[in-house]
């Protein structure tokens, strides 16, 4: 027999987690399951929660993303769900994130320094980055590590100055006590600090936190804040920062890095802990490979009611099939949410002749000629960046004729098309807003059908 749930979310990134959490929150006792294949692209993510940094026309950085939402073009995911839903979704995220994130006190974007020394407009930011905001006029010492070439502190400091940051930044590069290998993993730095492992220094064996603070302290020239690449602990990151800050007598902040990214890993951990608390059942490591549509002719009255509501006679998904190393496990739910990501997350895939969505084969609008999928200017307006599903205002993916593909399928996050999250800086915000809306609506509809 199939494994039964009320709402089944496919995809375990930010959109999928938010959808599952919103569904579990919407209806008491809703049985919600999240199925995720490989690990999500959250581990590539900076951990910043942006809503909109630039308009689709490239204007920005925007001071207030909410001012710009009303002017977004038809079909943009924010236009589909409406700006009130964006606010609600963000408030829901704030509740889940608690102290781990900052920025909820204002609608305005914060400017967070990146590892390249640029500044990124973002609506929410991890607490670990809070002391580093570029709008803060206190001087900063940036510390890089010889064995971590992804962050070149002196260069980043110069870039910040060139970007017109209202403070003076100085960069130094040191050897990280306890790390010998040139390509030690970011998790190795984090683990050393998390466990405060004992390391050998010229002054004898000390804890890793003390050893690091001592090395950095020698370079400090009275700066009231010190920035490090984002490797300051994983499980006990707040404790590590507090210890370094106390030892240095200065505020300590992290600078978000490229993949693999610890702030992304921590966000993932935070979401999965919330899923567990909310009673969401998580099945991970296995793919959904196909689905079985319900027999609409023999549909029960509840099904027909839904079809009537939807204004079409769209099929219903009866169950999906999860492949566990060759064993096919059916999963049945009232409502399904597709949150499998975009081209990088492989929720949208491409071959030479077509761009497609691999599980339900939902319609992905794209030019017939693949030479029209891209433009020659690498940083130009790339059509492929907007590839994805086209949803109605209920977030149900539409077929080529503009009718819902299925009566009980919604989509959220990067699997949706019509926006370029990398250019707009809207990836996290769209995932949160659409995940929230898809999760709530799915749970309400499943609840009504019970």
């Amino acid at each position, binding site marked *: *027999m*199939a*494994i039964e749930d009320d709402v089944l979310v496919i995809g375990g990134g930010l959109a999928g987690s938010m959808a599952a959490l919103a569904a579990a929150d919407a209806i008491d006792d809703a049985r919600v399951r999240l199925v995720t294949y*490989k*690990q*999500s*692209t959250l*581990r*590539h993510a900076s951990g910043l929660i942006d809503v909109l940094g630039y308009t689709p026309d490239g204007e920005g950085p925007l001071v207030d993303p909410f001012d710009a939402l009303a002017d977004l073009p038809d079909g943009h995911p924010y236009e589909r769900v409406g700006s009130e839903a964006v606010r609600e979704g963000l408030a829901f995220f704030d509740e889940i994130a608690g102290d781990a994130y900052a920025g909820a006190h204002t609608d305005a974007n914060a400017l967070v320094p990146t590892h390249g020394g640029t500044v990124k407009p973002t609506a929410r930011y991890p607490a670990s980055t809070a002391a580093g905001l570029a709008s803060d006029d206190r001087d900063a010492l940036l510390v890089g590590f010889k064995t971590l070439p992804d962050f070149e502190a002196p260069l980043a400091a110069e870039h910040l100055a060139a970007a017109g940051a209202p403070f003076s930044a100085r960069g130094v590069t040191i050897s990280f006590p306890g*790390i*010998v*290998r040139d*390509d*030690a*993993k*970011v*998790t*190795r730095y*984090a*683990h050393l600090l998390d*466990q405060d492992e*004992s390391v050998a220094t010229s002054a004898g064996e000390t804890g890793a936190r003390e050893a690091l603070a001592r090395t950095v302290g020698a370079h400090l020239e009275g700066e009231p804040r010190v920035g490090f690449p984002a490797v300051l602990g994983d*499980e006990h990151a707040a404790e590590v920062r507090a210890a370094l800050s106390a030892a240095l007598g200065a505020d300590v902040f992290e600078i978000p890095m490229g*993949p*693999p990214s*610890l702030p992304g*890993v921590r966000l993932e951990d935070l979401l*999965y802990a919330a899923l*567990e608390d909310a009673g969401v*059942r*998580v*099945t*991970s*490591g*296995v793919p959904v490979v196909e689905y079985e549509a319900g027999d609409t002719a023999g549909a029960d009255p509840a099904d027909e009611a839904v079809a009537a509501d939807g204004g079409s006679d769209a099929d219903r998904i009866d169950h999906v099939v*999860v492949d*566990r*190393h*060759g*064993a096919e*496990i*059916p999963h049945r739910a009232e409502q399904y949410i597709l949150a499998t990501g975009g081209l*990088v*997350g*492989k929720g949208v895939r491409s071959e*030479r002749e077509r761009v497609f969505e691999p599980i339900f084969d939902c319609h992905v609008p794209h030019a017939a000629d693949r*030479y029209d999928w891209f433009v020659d200017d690498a940083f130009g307006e790339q059509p492929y960046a907007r590839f994805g599903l086209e949803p109605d205002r209920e977030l149900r993916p539409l077929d080529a004729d503009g009718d819902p593909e299925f009566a009980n399928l919604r989509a959220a996050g990067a699997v949706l098309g019509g926006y370029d999250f990398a250019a707009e800086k809207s990836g996290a915000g769209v995932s949160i807003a659409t995940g929230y809306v898809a999760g709530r609506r799915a749970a309400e509809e499943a609840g009504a059908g019970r």
Partner: protein
Amino acid sequence: MSDAERPTDDHVPGAKDDEFEPIQVFPEAEEMDLRPGADNCYKCSTCDTNCPVAAVDDEFPGPKFQGPEQWRLKRQDDHDIDDSVMKCSNCMRCDSACPSEVPLSQMHNTARAEYVEENMSKLSREYWRNRMLANYRRLAPLAATFPRTANFVTGLSITKWLGEKVMGITSEREFPEFATETFREWWTKRGGAQVESDEKRIAYFHGCYANYNTPEVAKALVRVYEHFGYEVMVPEQSCSGTPMFANGMLDDARRAAETNVEELAAALEDGADIIASCSSCSMSIRQEYPELFDFEHTEDVAANTWDAVEYLRVHEDLEGELEGTSLDGQSFAYHAPCHSRNQGLDGQTIDVLSAIDGIDAHDVGDSCSGISGTYGWKAENYETSMKIGEEMFEHMEDAPAETGLTECPTCSMQMGHGTGYEITHTLEVLEAALLGTELGTAGSGTGDGDADAVDGGRREAK
């Protein structure tokens, strides 16, 4: 289809598609072809962030190197496999981490086998120690014949001292106790299956540990399945191969796998599905066999092998049956073994047990226990193993429970070793709930929970 087989550019003026002749760029793959997998790697390093060894040992270059990067280096003839491959514990977490479907553990298994074959001296202590650990199955019958003597001897400090000095097996751990009656002896004495059925039939792959060390787990499986009306078959079987893969003993693993595939394929013929109670055994049959071997029926056997609880969940109304059962005041600190996680089973135990009244099961998080089969038994890995386990120990101690729960024999040893808790197996809990028997804790391997060993172990780890 690769571009080599297609026109590279059908927009080039003058080029006609029908004139295109495919070029063979790479030689035809004769054996296992790892190229497509290596080419899938876009170097995001997600695997590296999941590697429990790389997080505690910066000498270990991580799965991205061990897999696709080393594979590429090996295209040049003058490169040996790097000896760091022996530091990989074969937890296989990188497999389910990879967002781009690179078959990392398959690459590690083949690289490790090549290293052992080409670069490890067959006269070295390391080789013979690894061979012995990998072939625990061969030693166990002897110990099982004289279990009390064996338990007495392995418990002696002189034995442990010799083990460390002579063989490089850590003296920090207590050897698992051998049962005075193996599962198969019990099965024979009992007269085999007590339920007969043409429709509902399973072949039980008990593996080595449930047979020689924790027959209570195997008995629980039989009783639970008979409760649901299944005829249980217990076919002849060898080791699943897990410890052999992890030690690069691929020839030993091949021999064991061949026996298993033959016996299990015969059981499939008889209308049975294959059920395992150990998460590494099921992992091995389901994933490693088809990745590494091509005996007849390998795919069939893999596709019809199930985890014991998973099977009941899909084929029976397990949760419905558990509604109304109760085990009052039982709290468990549950650890999902990495090899369960890789089969998509990490949430299953907590899910299923939530149907039983009075049970409070806490997931202790997604960290690795650190022992990874034979890995943590090696003297040179003991410290790494305990460092990896630290997070799980912390979470177990934070959880409001005094009993551990897991489905992997060696995770269970590590849990007992690090916390001093008794550890039980999910099947034993199901047996207690469904059949009203007293809850056992056979999974702990027993005798490994004395406070001195625990403290000693933890101090070492820090």
